[in-house]
């Protein structure tokens, strides 16, 4: 994707150094490191810090489809990985705190070694008590055309590379959880048919509303929270030690998907859009009812059976989605109910 507009001194410094060759940027990276340390000490909340979340988003992007005009050699440049680590530590800590607050008391399966059924039970229980304000009901009943576009803009940050963060976890798993993840991902990637890839279906929905469908086209428009939701997946997917969290994340994502997607589709149908536009949502009603069973029982549950000490991280990943996505939904709803845009103030409303 194109390098986005900077959102503060740190992203400005990063975007200044990336067009150079990695070998020549030592001093600039050290300066960047110091700026981040200072900012981390001062930021009230890293999850909603625009400059830090955009910086992290672009650092992760080097591991996906890259940034235009930036050498691929940066991906594993030690100085830049150090910068990423510097951001990841406090980001993970903030996510753990937010997840714990969102989850409250979680009733854990009794005894040592939870079975996969017990893990699935706990996860379905958590998904079922998610009582936050309902963005999907608003989209179904009330959202205006501009609000539908805003909704797609927020989602586009992830959905145009849908499934990619979790794919990083495949080689970190073995046996039953690995087979489960591959089965889910094969479906996400269209079962061999590129036009049926979920990211391709989402792009089709965007085109149906006359919107740009290139990956990253709307990064400048979304608030830090929308970037944080995707950065969380990259953090979990790219760090082997967090393999429990990425499986919990996927399980919760799937378990809270089927019914909201039915309602999202209804919102677009209400505005007269046909199956070409709603196919993305309709597909998820059916697909995620399959995926939630496999992700809860075979993926997350199977991983806990194989590595019982990962139960806490499975729950962390699951409750972190509830926390961050819940906060994003609340922000969007609150903006709309006050007659405002949920996008960044500096950016004109949806294209």
């Amino acid at each position, binding site marked *: 994707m194109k390098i986005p507009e900077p959102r503060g001194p740190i992203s400005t410094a990063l975007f200044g150094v990336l067009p150079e060759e990695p070998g020549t940027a030592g001093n600039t990276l050290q300066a960047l490191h110091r700026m981040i340390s200072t900012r981390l000490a001062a930021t009230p909340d890293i999850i909603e810090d625009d400059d830090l979340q955009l910086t992290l988003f672009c650092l992760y992007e080097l591991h996906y489809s890259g940034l235009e005009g930036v050498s691929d050699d940066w991906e594993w440049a030690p100085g830049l990985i150090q910068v990423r680590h510097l951001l990841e530590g406090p980001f993970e800590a903030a996510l753990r705190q937010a997840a714990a607050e969102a989850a409250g008391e979680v009733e854990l399966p009794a005894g040592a070694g939870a079975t996969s*059924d017990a893990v*699935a*039970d706990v996860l*379905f229980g958590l*998904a*079922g008590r998610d009582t936050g304000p309902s963005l999907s009901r608003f989209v179904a009943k009330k959202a205006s055309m501009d609000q539908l576009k805003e909704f797609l803009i927020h989602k586009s940050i992830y959905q145009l590379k849908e499934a990619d963060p979790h794919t990083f976890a495949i080689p970190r798993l073995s046996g039953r959880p690995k087979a489960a993840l591959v*089965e889910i991902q*094969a*479906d996400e990637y269209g*079962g061999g048919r590129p036009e*049926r890839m979920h990211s391709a279906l989402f792009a089709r929905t965007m085109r149906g509303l006359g919107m740009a469908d290139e990956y990253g086209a709307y990064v400048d428009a979304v608030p830090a929270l929308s970037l944080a939701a995707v950065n969380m997946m990259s953090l979990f997917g790219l760090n082997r030690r967090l393999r429990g969290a990425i499986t919990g994340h996927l399980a919760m994502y799937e378990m809270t*998907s*089927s*019914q909201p997607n*039915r309602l999202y589709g209804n919102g677009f149908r209400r505005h007269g859009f046909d199956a070409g536009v709603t196919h993305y949502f309709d*597909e998820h*009603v*059916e*697909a*995620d*009812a*399959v995926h*939630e*069973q*496999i992700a809860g*029982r075979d993926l997350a549950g199977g991983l806990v059976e194989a590595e019982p000490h990962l139960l806490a991280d499975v729950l962390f990943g699951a409750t972190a989605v509830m926390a961050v996505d819940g906060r994003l939904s609340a922000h969007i709803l609150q903006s709309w109910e006050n007659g405002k845009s949920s996008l960044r103030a500096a950016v004109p409303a949806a294209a």
Partner: protein
Amino acid sequence: MNQEPAESSIVVCPDGPLIVRGDFEIVTPSGEPVPRERKTVALCRCGASAIKPYCDGTHKMIKFRTEPPAS
């Protein structure tokens, strides 16, 4: 009994659908294929799905239980 794993399997999900995996077809009583978009499917068994024969997760909202309540 054949010791090889069967070609297909049906996973009986507690309080949820039947996950069918492997080599099979889904047909109407007259033998017409039911549209199918994926290899592994979840078949509704609570009766409340809006996309039958497939599951759409509604069993969670109606608190469908596959085990009789403990007395």
